[in-house]
């Protein structure tokens, strides 16, 4: 299960869906595995609009990833190349491309190359634990929660 997945998931208990505490689910005892996927900047750029950044930061933090930027990278063509945003310029004068590239490659590693093999995801609202075994998360609920 790729890390990006948890950004699309919530607690399977119906009553939890409306609670902001049910998203993101919180990783515990996660065993990670890195796979090697070819870096594709265009693909990543189309994935980022789908990512809830606050949730991703929580997830990354729980898994020990420290390189996620505070703000989602702004990838609209106008903001990266032009001088519409002069505040950014002094920071980026030396090798601005390299900085962006590094950020994007770190995100590629986190979102797409990292798989959770074992562990669990816990709902922040009801506390239900969803176990992950051999990369497959079990979201089946006990009868009394269905």
């Amino acid at each position, binding site marked *: 299960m790729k890390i990006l997945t948890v950004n699309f*998931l*919530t607690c399977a208990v119906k009553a939890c*869906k409306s609670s902001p505490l049910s998203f993101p689910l919180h990783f515990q005892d996660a065993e990670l595995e890195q796979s090697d996927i070819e870096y594709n900047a265009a693909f990543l750029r189309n994935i980022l609009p789908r990512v809830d950044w606050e949730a991703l930061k929580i997830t990354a933090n729980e898994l020990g990833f420290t390189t996620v930027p505070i703000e989602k990278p702004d990838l609209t063509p106008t903001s990266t190349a032009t001088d519409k945003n002069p505040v950014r310029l002094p920071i980026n004068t030396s090798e601005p491309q390299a900085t962006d590239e590094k950020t994007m490659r770190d995100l590629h590693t986190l979102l797409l190359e990292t798989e959770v093999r074992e562990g669990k995801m816990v709902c922040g609202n009801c506390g239900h634990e969803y176990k992950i075994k051999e990369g497959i998360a079990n979201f089946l609920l006990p009868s009394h929660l269905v």
Partner: protein
Amino acid sequence: MLPTPSTAHVDLNRIYEPSEDSYLLLDTLSSPSETAFLTHRFSQNSTAAPDPAPVVLEVGTGSGVVLAFATANARSIFGRDDILAIGTDVNRFACQATRQTVLGASQGHNDNSALASKSGGNTMLLAILNADLTNPMRLGMVDVLIFNPPYVPSSDVPEATLSNAKSTAGSFEHDSQLLTLSYEGGVDGMEVTNRLLEQLPEVLDCERGVAYILLCQQNRPEEVVKRIHDWGEGWSVEIVVRSGKVAGWEKLCIIRIWRIQEATPF
């Protein structure tokens, strides 16, 4: 014809094998009318600006042949190959098999080497989840939902719960119950499909969302279509293909349900 993914590894004692209904879904998704519809719906507006990658969810993946086909042939079907694929199945063995089928099809680790070249490696299998229908999905996250439901009328539907999965795990009884779950649909064969239909408005993306659901004649597809018409102006529904033995009981069809934008006044 686009190549069919290999499912040679699928354990047929525990997992629904690719059948007439599965192949009807493959043919429909890759038909000229549906690829035109999907390509138009998901075409990238510009190559310069980011364009959100579509999330494709298959519910009840079974062998995984449909999800594997959709991801490996994403360029032909959706007009783009940056697809994020997720599958769910109540059967853990099906989840494992699906992962293998999807990865095999997109990496070319099977007989159909032609599949590998199609995807360009951009389609991404996010996860196969051991789950009932769309239960763990966040609201509004799915762009394309595909469902080949258990549609055969039966006296009742086995409950897909954690307790049931555990109590008989590993036994012959468990295996046959898993298979039963893959085709028994309760009253009119519609009990599971009706639960899925209830979830659609919550789970489908509010602009781009579209769902393909397979039905058999005993599900009374015309009535299902009529019911969905009553969902209101933001929805459209159509029977996009009919097939199967006309005289036999298993005459199949596939309905497409999609969100439409209310007309904007000039």
